[in-house]
Every structure is written in structure tokens, then in C-alpha cells.
């Protein structure tokens, strides 16, 4: 029964990921669902998932964890899944070339783990060289494919930053600097959305007709992408945190920090639309029966406390009801409460299933569910983003905007910024100069 409703939700919410949207070019109302925004969301999904799986594959391989193989397979499957997205724009030939370069680069993760673990400098240099080659080759591919709309240098720079972030996250993890690893993880994750924006923008600029002349960087598309990023990051961190908690991993607490940071950003995003009160309300619902309940589920599982597990799961289902109601009310029904509740429940179900499959040793199943649950979040981001845009069309109207405020004044008739201590120094300095001037002046006079 649970499975059925879950599949249903995916087909409803995830529709835009699978089918092109019917765009209404003549309609002036802003929308988060355009062909361009869909492309961006699809790349958001695939590229950010690539990052989470790449780090998972490397850290599990390094620890010799039992789920290392499943993690790598999921990473490889993510690369395979990119092919249709590329083929829809550049045809089968382009997609095949994309896959060849991209899939190959996933293999470096394994070599890199081995080299780092054995502290083999030579092997490490070899991997660095391979990664460099990938950056150059892939940047060239992207630049050629987009006919220079994504300049080769810009592509190189973006890819370089990404590779460095994966590497840094992993290296910090290996030496046990979990705080630094956590920080870089978040930056690296967010960088994927920047890459996606640049790439989708280049594609849309190259083929405006194919995308009905819609743009990837409208305020509505930006909101959708932000919500996608926050929702999917939450899912990735929740499942990762639960597995770390289950294993008693040393970096469990640091994943908790990241979840807190994610919550703070989510709260700010909600606050930007619904004000402080809405943000506070969001946070209370989000953390109590949700983030904390997920942690309680882990603790109960670790202790073998079945009653505790049930209590935690009940809380998560209660959260789905509460949060769905919150979203339905906040969006004035633009996101119907029932739909929101069903979507959140589907999300909690994938979180629980990913964790329980992991705990029972079904790693392949766990990563499959992870990928399903990760994708689901992009449906949530779309549905919520579109509901917010429809509710507040003025906020998301596309208007010409300057990059900076005008400099409307020269400061002649205004108080300038100076603190008392600065005035003391200036006065003292002036006195000294003046005194010196007097002495120097007096000398010739006295002669």
C-alpha cells in the first residue's frame, strides 16, 4: 500500500523531470515551470546527486565499508542516467561522448582512495594528472557542444573547483578533520547547482527556440532551484546522518551540524517569502517531529528498542501531516494540503526505507531507495516553488534589474562615518604635524 502511493507521488511530482513541460509563452504570469527551468532542475538533480554519491563512494571505499560497492554502482548509474538529458539536447552521438568522458572520470575515485590510503605520492600524482585531463577534455566538450556559450575557460574553472572540493572533502575525512570535511561538503554540494545554472544557461542561450525562449535564471526558476537544493540536501544529509549514527561513526555529530545549517537556510528561504513568523513556525515543525525523530529512529534501532522505533516512525508520519498542512496553508492552497502531505509522507517513507535497508545489510536496495528519494525532492521543490510563485506573482515578476544601487550623493552635506577614536588619532597627528611645522618655521626666524 505504501509502495503504491509512493510510486503515484513520484509520477505526479516528478513528472517534469520525465516529460517536457507545455509552456505558455503568451501568458505573462511568472512560473517556475518552463522548459528552461526544467532543464536546469534536471541538471541540478543529476549533478548534485553525482556529488553526494562521489563522496559516499570515496568515504565508504576508504573505510572498507560493506556498502562501498553499492555506493560506486549508484555513482555509475547516475552517470548513465545523465545520457537521456544530454541526448535530448545534443543527440545520441553527443550523449555517448558525454557519457564516455563523464563515466570514465568516476573511476578515478577508486584510484584516488587507494593512493590516499596508502599515501602513495606517485599514484596520487598520477590520479591528479588523470583528473586534470578530465577537466580539460570535459571543459572542451562542453564548450564545443554549446558552441562557446559556455566558454572553455569558465567550464574548466567550474570543473576544477568541483574536483578540488571532492578531493578536499575526502582528504579531510581521511585525516579525521571532520569539521573541515563537513564544511567543504556543503560548499561542494552547492557548487553543483552553480555548474548546473551555468551549463543550462549556455544550452538555453544556444537553442532559444527549443526552450520556447524561456530563461533559466528568472526569479521563479531561481526559487525552484534553491528549494530543490535545500530539499535534496536535506534528504542526502538525513540518510547519511542516520547511517553514521547507526554505525557510531566519529563524524556523526558533524553531519548533524550540516543538517542544522541546512535547516537555517531553509528557514531563511521560507522567511523571505512568509516573513519571520512563518519562518519560526516552519522551524518548529521541521525540527521536532522530523529531524529529531529521524535521530530517535536511529537510536532506537541501535539499542534494539522496537517500541522506540515505532514511536519515532509515528512522529515522522505526524510530521508529514503537520508540514503538509503548514505548506498548504502558507501557499493559500496553491499547493493543496493533501498533495503536500502525500509528498512529505513519500519523502519520509524513502528516508525510513533507505535507512532500514542499510541497517539490515541490503546496501544495493538502500542505494536504490536513496536515488529514488533523492529524485523525489526535486518534485517537491518544483511543486512548492510553483505554488509560491503562483501565490506571489508580483514577487517573481521578471523586471530589469541593475547590478548595484545608484550612487546618489557625494557626501558633502552628510555626516561621515568616523568613530571617536579615529578623531583622537587624527587630532593628535595633526597636532604633531603642526608642532613640527612651528619648530621648523621658528628656526629660520630665530636666526
Amino acid at each position: 500500500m505504501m509502495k503504491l502511493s509512493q510510486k503515484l507521488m513520484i509520477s505526479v511530482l516528478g513528472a517534469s523531470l520525465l516529460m517536457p513541460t507545455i509552456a505558455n509563452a503568451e501568458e505573462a504570469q511568472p512560473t517556475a515551470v518552463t522548459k528552461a527551468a526544467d532543464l536546469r532542475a534536471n541538471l541540478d538533480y543529476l549533478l548534485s546527486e553525482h556529488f553526494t554519491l562521489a563522496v559516499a563512494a570515496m568515504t565508504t571505499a576508504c573505510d572498507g565499508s560493506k556498502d562501498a560497492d553499492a555506493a560506486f554502482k549508484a555513482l555509475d548509474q547516475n552517470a548513465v542516467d545523465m545520457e537521456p538529458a544530454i541526448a535530448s539536447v545534443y543527440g545520441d552521438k553527443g550523449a555517448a561522448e558525454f557519457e564516455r568522458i563523464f563515466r570514465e572520470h568516476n573511476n578515478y575515485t577508486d584510484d584516488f582512495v587507494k593512493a590516499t590510503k596508502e599515501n602513495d605520492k606517485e599514484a596520487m600524482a598520477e590520479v591528479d594528472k588523470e583528473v586534470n585531463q578530465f577537466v580539460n577534455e570535459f571543459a572542451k566538450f562542453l564548450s564545443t557542444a554549446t558552441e562557446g556559450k559556455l566558454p572553455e575557460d569558465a567550464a574548466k574553472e567550474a570543473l576544477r573547483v568541483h574536483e578540488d572540493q571532492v578531493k578536499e572533502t575526502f582528504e579531510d575525512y581521511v585525516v579525521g578533520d571532520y569539521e573541515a570535511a563537513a564544511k567543504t561538503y556543503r560548499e561542494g554540494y552547492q557548487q553543483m547547482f552553480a555548474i548546473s545554472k551555468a551549463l543550462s544557461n549556455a544550452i538555453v542561450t544556444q537553442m532559444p527556440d527549443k526552450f520556447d525562449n524561456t530563461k533559466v535564471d528568472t526569479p521563479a526558476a531561481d526559487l525552484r532551484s534553491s528549494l530543490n537544493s535545500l530539499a535534496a540536501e536535506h534528504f542526502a544529509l538525513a540518510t547519511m546522518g542516520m547511517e553514521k549514527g547507526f554505525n557510531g561513526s566519529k563524524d556523526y555529530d558533524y553531519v548533524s551540524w550540516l543538517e542544522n545549517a541546512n535547516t537555517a537556510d531553509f528557514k531563511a528561504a521560507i522567511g523571505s517569502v512568509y516573513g519571520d513568523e512563518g519562518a519560526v513556525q516552519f522551524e518548529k515543525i521541521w525540527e521536532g517531529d522530523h529531524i529529531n525523530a529521524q535521530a530517535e529512529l536511529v537510536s532506537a534501532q541501535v539499542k534494539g528498542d522496537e517500541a522506540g522505533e515505532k514511536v519515532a516512525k509515528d512522529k515522522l508520519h505526524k510530521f508529514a501531516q503537520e508540514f503538509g498542512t503548514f505548506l498548504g496553508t502558507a501557499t493559500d492552497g496553491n499547493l493543496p494540503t493533501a498533495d503536500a502531505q502525500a509528498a512529505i509522507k513519500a519523502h519520509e517513507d524513502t528516508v525510513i526505507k533507505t535507512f532500514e535497508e542499510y541497517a539490515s545489510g541490503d546496501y544495493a536496495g538502500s542505494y536504490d531507495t536513496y536515488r529514488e528519494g533523492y529524485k523525489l525532492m526535486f518534485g517537491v521543490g518544483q511543486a512548492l516553488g510553483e505554488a509560491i510563485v503562483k501565490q506571489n506573482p508580483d514577487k517573481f515578476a521578471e523586471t530589469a534589474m541593475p547590478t548595484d544601487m545608484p550612487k546618489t550623493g557625494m557626501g558633502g552635506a552628510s555626516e561621515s562615518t568616523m568613530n571617536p577614536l579615529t578623531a583622537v588619532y587624527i587630532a593628535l597627528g595633526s597636532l604633531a604635524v603642526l608642532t613640527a611645522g612651528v619648530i621648523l618655521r621658528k628656526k629660520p626666524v630665530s636666526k
Partner: protein
Amino acid sequence: MKRGDDVKKAIVLAYCILSLVLLVSGGLYFKEQMVEAKEMKQQNAAKQKEKEAQSKDLKSRVMLEEEFAVLKKHKTEAKQLNKEFKGIIPAKVSIPAIHVEASIEQVGLLDSGEMAAPSTENGVAWFEPGAKPGVKGNAVLAGHVDSKTGPAVFYNLKNLKKDDEITVRDVQGTTLTFVVKRTKSYPRDKAPLNEIFGYSNKRNLNLITCTGTFDRAEGTHQERLVVYTELKADQAKELEREATAPKPPTHVKMSGNLLMWYAVREGNIIGYRIYKKNLGGTFVHIGSVSEFERKSFADSDASQSHYYVTAVNESGKESAPSSIAK
């Protein structure tokens, strides 16, 4: 001449203006400093008040074992040596003087009432119903002197001399060093059992093996060799010290209804206590979180409330309160 006067006048005027500026801005700066100092004083007074209040805070009366779940597999740190030390479950023994490195198994009594022997010739047995190494009393380890075919783990035990050292470790790496006091052989049935196994006000570890001639009729050696050792003086001294409290948790923050903090990573922490201010201004212990759990606590009614968190170590010592979160 006139021009010189003008210049002089200008200089004097400039001096006057600058002095005035200096006076005014200096005054402003001084005032700012005073305000800061006053704020600091107020803060300190508030802190002092808080401290006084905390000494009256309501603590839990639950047994430590009930309050915190401690997972064996997650504990990797060595135990602290202090008054709260309850001995170790020995896992490894090493005797450098006779090149012994052995694993330790736990044995009890046989139906006949004798201490069970180690199950392998290379292993050592710890008499589990007896004292744990490190506590006051006699902990006992036994090892075979030989097997049917040749020497076994304690073959060279007879060569130990006064002041030779024996170390035993538990799985968490707590290491205790014992020093040989004397060695003595007894006829099999004449060993002073009370002296070897009974209570002592010293922290002893006694090693037993067989010695003498093998009595084929009885199927055992005729004598028993006992090596009496005592915990090294510096460690014994450490065990007389009061247990120290761990450091309090940092980064305690309230976010929505969720109280969060950073874990305390040193000092064998087994969990955290959460205190909430009640209407009377007293802080009351409202919940505990075990070490392996998420470092957060959800309170359904957190508005207008104040909280602090403490860390608790395996000795049951509680840290000072963290900063107050509200």
C-alpha cells in the same frame, strides 16, 4: 612683521581647534569605554548570580545505567585512573621480561570447586568471579606451563624476578602495570588460597602456573607457582585522586523547539543532561541524551525558556553548566 603675526595667530587658532577636537573626541572615547566596562561588570554579576542559582539546581536521581545507554562497540577511549575507577576486564597481558604476549579469556569455577584452566596453551585465563585488575584485592591470572608436547605460555614464569613488570590492557586500551613482589611455589593442595584469591587492601595481580614434577597418576603437576605482583606505585597513587569533571558542552543553541550543542570529545563522556529553568528560577533536569545520540533535545514548549546542558563522564562526574541558551 604683520605677516608673522598673522601666521602666529593662525597657528594658535589651529592649536585651539585641534585641542578642542582632542578634548571632545577623547571625552567621547572615554565615555564609550566606561559604558563598556559597566556592561562587562553587569555581565559578570549576572554570571555570578547564575552560578549561585545553579548550585541549587535540581539534579536527577536516576541511576547512571538507567539514564544513559552505553554501547560497548562505540567506546574506544582508555578509562581514567581516579577514585571512580572500577578495574578493567583484562583482554591482553604482556610480560616483557619473559617475552609473553597473550590474550586473556574469562574463566570461573569448575563443578569440583577449582578454578578452571585456560582453554588454550597460548592463552591466559582471568578468574572472572574474583577481583578485576586494578581494584583493591587479588586479581588472578592463570596460564599453562606446558602442553603435552612442549612449553606453553607461562613456561618461563619461574624466571620472573622482583621488580619485573607485567602489563594488562582492556579492549579500550586502559593499561595497568604491575610489579613483581615475590614468587613462591606451593604443593598443589597446600597453596594459601585466601592469600592468593582473597581480599587485600592492596591492588594485586597474582599469576599462577604449574611447576614441579608432573604427577601422571593425578594428571597434574605436583606444585603451583604463584607470582605475586602489585599495581605500580604511580598508578596506585593516581587511583586515589578525585575524579575530575569533564568540560561543559559548547555552542549550546536554541533553534525553534530544538536545543542543540557540540559534543564534548574528551574525557569518556557517556551522555548529556538538559536543564530547563522553571518559573521559580531554578533549573530542573528535564532529560538526558546518550553519547551516541544526536546532540539535540526537542522540547515541545521552548518559548520563553532558558536551558543549559552538562556533560557526564563514565565516572558519573558532571561538568559545569554550559552557557545558557534561550
